[in-house]
């Protein structure tokens, strides 16, 4: 079980309110990702749930029980830290055993669980090593191992992949997703990387300045961003946001169109422009097109081998059903 409810939770550091009243429900077995730019309060929120910080007001319930005042040790949650926070003076085995030792679980059961976790995480050969002798990916796995042996109500991940190199990050992303499939335990995952959020989450919570901007499945956020912030934050490359006359034509203050929803043609289309920088990724090409009468260049995704060059004249046509409209307050117009 692992159903976590936040009820009007706030956090102030002195005079500064980092988290204004916030309500959120995380269902049992869900993979929830908190995403937002740095300083948006996502890590603070995670630490509040973990019990490493006190809430200033409001209530946190875990499986229906009030855990607001409970110390971290009593919340049945396990956490994987950004720095992994392995105990450097203990072997991998002792690291993984530590939470079990603290819980007073007998030696035989400890060993059984450690062997199990080691098998799942490919750590069997490394159990007697010290953390200092392991690679970044292996340390990450030890940190996860230390979390899973406790069989917690929920896992908390605080930017766990940000210290790994790009290739390893993709691999670990898959491993964590697989782990979630297998364990079916609630996971709360904090990241600033919207790609991680999109690929892993059942539910994404987009935060800005301590406020929840939108909660929903990855595709909901992609298809129906509630406001300009979410529209700009989710999706890569970013959605093109266009103000002014072009937006007014659609009855909006601002319109947004994703690069992948614009058709390119050398002959005819809605907007006429000149090709600027192009980024060739092999499978795709992103063109930055300067359209007459628009301040910002428009990013367009095209096939990998479209033969356009710097300075070429092109015509762009946004797919009409994919145009997002926003009002004066930056909110989506349904």
């Amino acid at each position: 079980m692992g159903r976590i409810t936040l009820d009007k939770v706030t956090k102030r550091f002195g005079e500064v309110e980092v988290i204004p009243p916030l309500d959120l429900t995380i269902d049992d077995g869900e993979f929830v990702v908190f995403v937002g730019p740095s300083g948006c309060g996502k890590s603070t929120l995670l630490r509040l749930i973990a019990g490493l910080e006190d809430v200033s007001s409001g209530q946190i319930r875990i499986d229906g029980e009030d855990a607001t005042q409970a110390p971290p040790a009593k919340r049945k949650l396990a956490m994987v830290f950004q720095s992994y926070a392995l105990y450097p003076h203990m072997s991998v085995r002792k690291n993984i055993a530590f939470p079990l030792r603290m819980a007073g679980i007998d030696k035989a059961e400890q060993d059984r669980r450690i062997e199990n976790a080691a098998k799942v995480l490919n750590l069997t050969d490394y159990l007697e090593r010290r953390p200092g002798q392991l690679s970044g990916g292996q340390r990450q796995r030890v940190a996860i191992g230390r979390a899973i042996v406790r069989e917690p109500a929920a896992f908390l991940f605080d930017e766990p992949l940000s210290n790994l190199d790009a290739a390893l990050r993709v691999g670990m992303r898959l491993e964590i997703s697989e782990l979630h499939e297998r364990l079916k335990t609630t996971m709360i995952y904090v990241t600033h990387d919207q790609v991680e959020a999109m690929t892993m989450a059942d539910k994404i919570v987009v935060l800005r300045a301590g406020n929840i901007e939108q909660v929903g499945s990855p595709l909901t956020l992609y298809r129906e961003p509630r406001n300009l912030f979410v529209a700009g934050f989710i999706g890569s490359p970013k959605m093109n946001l266009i103000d002014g006359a072009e937006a007014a034509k659609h009855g909006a203050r601002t319109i947004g169109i994703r690069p992948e929803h614009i058709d390119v043609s050398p002959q005819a289309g809605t907007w006429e422009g000149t090709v600027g920088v192009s980024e060739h990724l092999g499978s795709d090409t992103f063109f930055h097109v300067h359209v007459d009468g628009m301040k910002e260049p428009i990013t367009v995704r095209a096939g990998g081998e479209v033969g356009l060059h710097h300075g070429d004249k092109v015509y762009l046509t946004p797919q009409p059903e994919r145009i997002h409209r926003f009002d004066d307050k930056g909110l989506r117009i349904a």
Partner: protein
Amino acid sequence: MATQHSRSAARLMMAPAVFVLLVWMLVPLIMTLYFSVLDYRPMRGAFDCCVGLSNYTSFLTSSAFLDSILVTLVMVGGILAITVVGGVALALLLDKPIWGQGIVRILVIAPFFVMPTVSALVWKNMFMDPVNGLLAHLWEFFGAEPISWLSDLPLFSIILIVSWQWLPFATLILLTAIQSLDSEQLEAAEMDGAPGYSRFLWIILPHMARAITVVILIQTIFLLSIFAEIFVTTNGAFGTRTLTYLVYQRVIESQNVGLGSAGGIIAVILANIVAIFLMRIVGKNLDA
């Protein structure tokens, strides 16, 4: 950043240390303060309450007080000058590429670990004795008249002894500071055409400035309360009576507790003035 729970635990765990130090500081200080307004001379059975500030006035106006301040200043100043200048020179020397650097370091640091009573006794008898002392032999070797160090040059002799003990401290700290200097800075200066002495003046010395301040201030704290060296060598005679030693004599030797306590309070006040400067410096480093 922490929870209420850990904050209260922290307060609880800090309590013993804070409490014992508070008691250690306040109780004797209050007693001294109290004694300082008494005419309290246990040997003569005098114990008169409340002579007001007369102990303070007589302590402050006695010629012994002004002399002791002067002696303290000369002693501390002399030792600081010798150890800092010598320390910078030695640190620069030890930073050079030399064979057996580790061993030389060990040789240089050794005097700091010598018990003050041992160092004072050995210097007094085996080196500074005008008849059998090694320095007397050395003077004779060069055909000079041996010096009666502790009776003719008592203050200088004590400065010499204490400097020998503290030079290693200054050297070690300044050496650590030099070694933390990024060698690329020096190479850049060399590329810019700076000759050796100007590299020292404009790069090495400013880099050591903080360490030098720290050395001066910490030594001052320890040197202001020099005791064993004077106790063993001259016993405060021949113009080597520092403020610390004067207070000690008043209280313990002449058993004039009232007068001595007033002197003690004055010493505390003066030491605190010095301490405030040290606090500022160390306090800045806390944030770094």
